[in-house]
């Protein structure tokens, strides 16, 4: 039988892979994908806890996270599109106007 903590371990590892991607990759699109990975890790954790508690509240949270992720990707990719059109590069280091 699978224990609840095993799902949490998978979610933790998935989250860490997402953080790693944001830290070591400089491609804007891949960084956006890694943010999706982190959101999904949180979703897996919420669904597992929803099952442990035996009620549906966790699944409602996941529903809201999916809504926010969809909006975030739509607006984020539009911003990336404008960014790449202006800078002619997908490297995040080329967009450093507001960086100290």
């Amino acid at each position: 039988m699978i224990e609840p903590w095993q799902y949490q371990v998978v979610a933790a590892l998935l989250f860490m892979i997402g953080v790693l991607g944001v830290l070591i990759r400089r491609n804007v699109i891949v960084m956006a994908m890694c943010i999706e990975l982190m959101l999904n890790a949180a979703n897996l954790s919420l669904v597992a806890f929803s099952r442990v508690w035996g009620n549906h509240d966790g699944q409602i949270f996941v529903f809201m996270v999916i809504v926010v992720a969809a909006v975030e990707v739509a607006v984020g990719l539009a911003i990336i599109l404008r960014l790449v059109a202006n800078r002619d590069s997908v490297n995040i280091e080329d967009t450093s106007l507001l960086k100290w």
Partner: protein
Amino acid sequence: MTEQVIFYICSFIVLLAAAGVVLNVRNTVYSALSLVVAMLALAVLFILLHAEFIGVLQILVYAGAIVVLFLFVIMLLNLRGGDMGAESQPILKIVGTLLIVGAGAKLVTLFTGARGAWPEVGREFGTVREVGKILYTDYLLAFEIAGIFLLAGLVGAVVMGKQRID
């Protein structure tokens, strides 16, 4: 027994595909396709947890809409292998990896062997009917706000994506 086999196989696929998203430096399209694989395997894990509605939503929204949007943008930008841009400094990569391995090991040891058991749930648990009942009663306000939020996102994406902002 079958449940265990499915769990281990799907977890392995999720983590492998997620690593593929991060480690693939040759072509962004491959990263996006890796992301689809991770989302589909994750949907199997959701269904294994009796969250059928969320599992189907995961396939519809993530694999069906979000990753397709990523692919559209990648192909619209016409990125070739050489245009990927310089990656971060090797020293930063090593420091970042060590940091993440340390934090990940801490998290995993924190969770390993934690107590907790699955309660018995009815056959209806996680179906559209049960989730919908709660969504349209207890969480009605949040649901309405999510609808307005989607509309705002739609308008925002169109405005941001316009060629010229007047």
